[in-house]
């Protein structure tokens, strides 16, 4: 009989940043190991701890993933060495092609095999079957990271790095699972800097603050709105216009706070090790146009596509029409990269078209009031996120249909309950008398204030230690940590 311990152990089998085991066990252990070894000038050993810790972190999710990332690192490092040993252009081209094919091939195999088979079956009316292939965590990120490295190596833009440095650059746990997509020149030199190996309170304090903010964003805001989204997608057809808009808005909020929260935690963790990780979000919902949105959202991905796809395709130097084609290609690839579903491709295509249209109507757009531009952009982003989130194009279309239907409906108790149930309301009954929808409105207003305040990178840039920031950080950490667990009440009536 399966024991409860066996069952519990399985649920704990993930070491996301927002978990007890990461915060209380893994992180302190790696920090102590790293700085202690550095203190005794065992620099290589310290870096080794970082690398091994990162691999342990990755393998913790699923031990069989480990061989994939290890082989990938070994393979790409060998390709890099091969490239640096060869002077001839022809040989280098061959090596590059081989390396790219291998990386992309691995990535495509794991991420898209099921998608391809399903589509072939649908089109050709066949019945091919393959087992559901489990997607190794972070493969989208470490694949792109290494592709950028190999291309740079081909272009002779990569100095002589040791294997230890290269491996740590790829596997560095703060950015391994969910980015940012870092470039070698912004990380590896930092690993080599002796000054960065001494514990630094300024960086560490900024790290704690960034981590706390990221944790709060993920656990307190993203997960909260995520529940509204999950509820909504359970039965899209039954949503009134108000609920439908709320579901769409909630996802817009969820995805930003989730992804940027995770990146904030990555930034914070990096700083705890004196490593500066590139910014990935710059208040994207402040954007006035779609191109600007992509300058602010998942910045390292935009950078990657620009450098390694857009410019090689010719960028904007091959005429207007070709520019539009290039832009469109980028966004189709981007859509595809995000997920193995037609919904992502549609999402990418829509953003591609919006980019092109913005270029075409550039003059007119500049004449419009900022508020109007902001509104159009924000609405567009909301509507396209629906395709990103919906399980199918049909569901996405349905939700949009519900938004524009004239049946308004109400918010509903199930939704307001999500906003009302928190530790403060549940324990201090007197807040119970405040109607649920006020909690909802209050939370939305609060979130919008956050969206228009300074973002985390801006905050830590100008960070000055003070009682205020200390209290803020303590409260954020404590409330987030106790929110990692809850009690599910099953209101089922069944025997």
């Amino acid at each position, binding site marked *: 009989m399966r024991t409860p311990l066996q069952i519990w152990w399985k649920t704990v089998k993930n070491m996301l940043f927002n978990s007890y085991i990461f915060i209380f066990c893994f992180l302190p252990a790696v920090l102590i190991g790293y700085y202690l070894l550095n203190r005794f000038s065992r620099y290589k050993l310290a870096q080794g701890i970082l690398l091994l810790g990162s691999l342990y972190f990755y393998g913790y999710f699923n031990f069989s993933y480990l061989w994939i990332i290890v082989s990938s690192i070994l393979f790409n490092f060998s390709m890099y060495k091969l490239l640096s040993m060869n002077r001839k252009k022809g040989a280098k081209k061959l090596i590059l092609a081989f390396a790219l094919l291998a990386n992309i091939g691995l990535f495509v195999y794991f991420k898209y095999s099921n998608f391809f088979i399903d589509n072939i079956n649908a089109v050709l009316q066949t019945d091919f079957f393959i087992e559901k292939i489990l997607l190794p965590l972070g493969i989208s990120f470490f694949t792109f990271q290494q592709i950028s490295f190999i291309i740079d190596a081909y272009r002779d833009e990569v100095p002589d790095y040791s294997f230890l440095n290269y491996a740590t650059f790829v596997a560095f746990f703060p950015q391994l699972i969910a980015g940012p997509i870092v470039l070698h020149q912004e990380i590896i030199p930092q690993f080599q800097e002796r000054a960065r190996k001494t514990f630094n309170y300024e960086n560490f304090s900024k790290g*704690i603050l960034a981590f706390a903010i990221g944790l709060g964003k993920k656990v307190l805001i993203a997960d909260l709105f995520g529940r509204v989204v999950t509820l909504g997608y359970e039965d899209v057809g039954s949503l009134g216009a108000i609920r439908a808009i709320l579901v769409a808005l909630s996802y817009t909020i969820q995805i930003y706070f989730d992804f940027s929260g995770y990146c904030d935690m990555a930034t914070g963790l990096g700083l705890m090790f004196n490593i500066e990780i590139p910014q990935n979000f710059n208040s994207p919902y402040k954007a006035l146009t779609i191109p600007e949105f992509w300058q602010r959202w998942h910045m390292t991905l935009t950078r990657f596509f620009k450098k390694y796809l857009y410019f090689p395709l010719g960028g904007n130097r091959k005429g207007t029409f070709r520019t539009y084609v290039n832009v469109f290609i980028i966004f189709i690839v981007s859509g595809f990269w995000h997920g193995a579903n037609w919904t992502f491709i549609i999402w990418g295509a829509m953003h591609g078209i919006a980019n092109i249209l913005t270029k075409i109507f550039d003059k007119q757009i500049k004449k419009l009031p900022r508020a109007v531009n902001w509104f159009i952009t924000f609405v567009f982003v909301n509507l396209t996120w629906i395709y990103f989130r919906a399980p199918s194009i049909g569901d996405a279309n349905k939700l949009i249909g519900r938004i524009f239907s004239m049946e308004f409906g109400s918010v509903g108790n199930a939704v307001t309950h999500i906003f009302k149930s928190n530790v403060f309301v549940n324990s201090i009954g007197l807040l119970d008398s405040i109607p649920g929808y006020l909690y909802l409105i209050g939370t939305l207003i609060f979130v919008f204030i956050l969206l228009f305040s300074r973002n985390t990178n801006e905050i830590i840039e100008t960070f000055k230690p003070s009682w205020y920031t200390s209290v803020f950080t303590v409260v954020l950490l404590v409330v987030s940590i106790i929110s990692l667990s809850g009690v599910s009440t099953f209101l089922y*009536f069944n025997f």
Partner: protein
Amino acid sequence: MHKKWTIVTLISTGIILCLIAAFVIVIDPFFNYHTPIRDYGYYLNNESYQNPGLARHFTYDAVLVGSSMVENFDASELDQMFGVNTIKLPYSGASFYNIKLISDIAFRHSDVKTVFWGVDLTRLSSDPNEPRYPLPEYLYTSQKIDDIEYIFNQDVIAQTVSTIRRMHAKIPNTPLDTAYEWYSQHKNDFNAKAVAQEYLSTRGDIGEDEEIDIANDEEIDMTNVELNIQQNILPLIEENPDTTFIMFFPPYSVLYWDTIHSQGLLDDYMRLKELVIEALMKYDNVALYDFQADASIICDITNYKDYSHYHPDINSYMVTSMAEGRYLLTKQNYKQEINKLHDLVLQIDVPALLQKYIDEAE
């Protein structure tokens, strides 16, 4: 300055977390570490979370297990009629895994002399390795390390605070004897006319003579049945030969059986029942009772709030009956009892029966 900030922030966070932990451990609303520290404040509101604590720390020599079929028992009645000290450990919708799990904990921590067990045949085909609904496993293990999910848990903290507030208001602890009862919240659902109307509307126009479409029926998963019996039921009985197992088949209404019959599974369930009875009868420490074929109970729709959930008076009746040795199954009579139920279901005119309740009310 940054040094001071870092140290102050981290230490403060640590201190507050320790205080929260102490707070939760001292009050312990889910009895993970100890029994209530006061006679006021505690409330039993969550079986999945509180049963393991009850089993571990409270004093008893008898346990009551089963599903919502047993939640309305008054343990003091069992205590009185059987001379025991019973603790209720039911799980709404309990699978046999649930029952085995909590029973194991009970046996580990107490000298359990009697087990009162409401046996639900349908649950035999459930996964023998899974609880019916997800459980907070960290409360079911003896390890301390997973308790972090209990201590730093927003809802546990909320319940800790409410417990303290109720302590101040001197609200007495939920009586254990009537813990988890659901009758008080469903009194108004005991409406025979409503139940009758609802059943008739779902049953459609299936006439008595209509052919049952066997091809459409669901199958009973016999692998699971075997595993549940071998893994979750028999070991408890075998490993505790000095414990008396008072097991009973609760009286679902005739509508419940009518539904099973319309799925073409009546014979399957009768065979299943026979299988279970024969497996259990081998043991001297098992007393098996069957209330399912008593037409005076199951055909009286006023006893029910739906097809299966009966009034607490029935629970009381079962206590007295079992204490007085009625409805006991023996090697001589069990086949006859099974047939009695089988024939009852086949012979009854359900629409006519239900129409009476609809007409009466008007």
